[in-house]
Structures are given as structure tokens and as C-alpha cells.
């Protein structure tokens, strides 16, 4: 993508933010997965963003996983409760995830608007000398 490079670079940004959106939606949908205390809880997904290998844009370095311990909640009515009446829930904070959701969405929109503006700029360049 070397001629119109800005579009490719913004594209790497858009892909990374979309993966962040996917991770957040994964976390939110599994937020209340109860498991018994003998198993590990759902681990929160974190997207690791790093600068792209060729220096042009960003890439996803990997997905890190949060703590397996989760929160121990006293809920003896739950069919999964152990002898002490405890159940393990994932350690995911709803307000934190909503904040991340907003940031990921804004980042995605910002990268797409870079694509838009770059496209306008390149089209203006293609009109050079066309007035005749």
C-alpha cells in the first residue's frame, strides 16, 4: 500500500480498534459466568497493541488474559456452590468495560475519518493540472 500509505496505516488502526471492540464484547458477554471454586474463572481479555513491525501503523501483539482467580461470591442457592456456598465469578468491572468500549469506538471512528480525509487529499492531488 505504498502509494496511498496513509490509508493503509489508518487501516491497521481500524483493525486493531475493532479487535479491541471484539475483546470488550467478549468480556461483557461473559461477565457473569459462574463456575465452581475448583475451576478457574473466565479471564478478562486484553488486547496488546504495539507498533507495527515495518514501522507503519499498529498491530495486535497478542491477547493477554486477566486473572483466573476472579471473585469469590457467597451464594449457597447456586447449583455450582461448593461446600462453603461459594461460587467463582470473573473479575470484570462493568464500568471499566463500558469506558473501554467508548474509547475503542472513538478510536475506530478516528481512524476511519483519517481514511476519509486522506482519500479527499489524494483525490485533490489527482486533479493537479486538470483545469484545462
Amino acid at each position: 500500500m505504498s502509494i496511498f500509505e496513509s490509508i493503509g496505516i489508518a487501516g491497521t488502526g481500524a483493525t486493531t480498534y475493532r479487535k479491541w471492540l471484539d475483546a470488550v464484547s467478549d468480556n461483557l458477554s461473559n461477565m457473569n459466568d459462574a463456575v465452581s471454586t475448583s475451576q478457574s474463572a473466565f479471564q478478562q481479555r486484553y488486547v496488546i497493541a504495539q507498533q507495527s513491525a515495518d514501522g507503519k501503523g499498529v498491530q495486535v501483539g497478542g491477547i493477554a488474559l486477566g486473572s483466573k482467580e476472579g471473585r469469590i461470591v457467597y451464594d449457597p442457592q447456586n447449583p455450582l456452590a461448593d461446600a462453603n456456598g461459594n461460587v467463582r465469578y470473573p473479575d470484570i468491572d462493568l464500568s471499566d468495560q463500558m469506558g473501554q468500549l467508548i474509547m475503542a469506538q472513538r478510536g475506530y471512528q478516528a481512524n476511519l475519518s483519517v481514511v476519509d480525509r486522506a482519500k479527499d487529499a489524494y483525490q485533490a492531488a489527482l486533479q493537479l493540472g486538470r483545469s484545462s
Partner: protein
Amino acid sequence: MTIPPIGPLSPVGAPTTIAPAAGTGASGGGDFANALSGGLDKLQQLQSTSDNLAVKAATGSLTDAHDYMIASTQASLATQLTVAVRNKAVDAFNEIMRMQA
């Protein structure tokens, strides 16, 4: 009242010749030919630059799109300028030929 007689005119000095500017006169035509052939060389160079950038654009290795657009516009304007100069030169030549008839 007495009117004094008109005296003899003093001779007008011989006109001083202005030294010809360097390169004009007999060498004026050579200058124009040089300018024209220099212009053609430059035009050839501009057209070949524009071609090279067009090939780079086709293979996707051009870094900036405006480089090609600028080179193409320069080549086009230089062509039009050369054509206009040629037309004027031909017109001037025809004008002179008409004078002699």
C-alpha cells in the same frame, strides 16, 4: 530694431556607434537555435521523468501520487510551450519571406 543674421549651423557630430551587446548580431540566430534545442532536450527529459513515474505508479512503488501529477503537468505545459514557440518561429519566418516578395 536690427535682427541679427542667422549664423551658420554647427555641424552635427557623427553618430557614435553603440557597441553591439555581446552575442547579438550575427550570433543572435545561434542563440535562438541553442535555446530551442536546449528547450527540446529539457522537454525530452521532462517527458521521460513523467514516463518513469507513471511506470512506478503502475507497479505500486510510487511514494507520492502528486509527484507523478506534477511531472505530468510539467511535461504537458513544456510540450505546449515548445509547440507555441515553433508556431511563432514559423509565422515569423513566413512574415519575412512575404516581405521579400
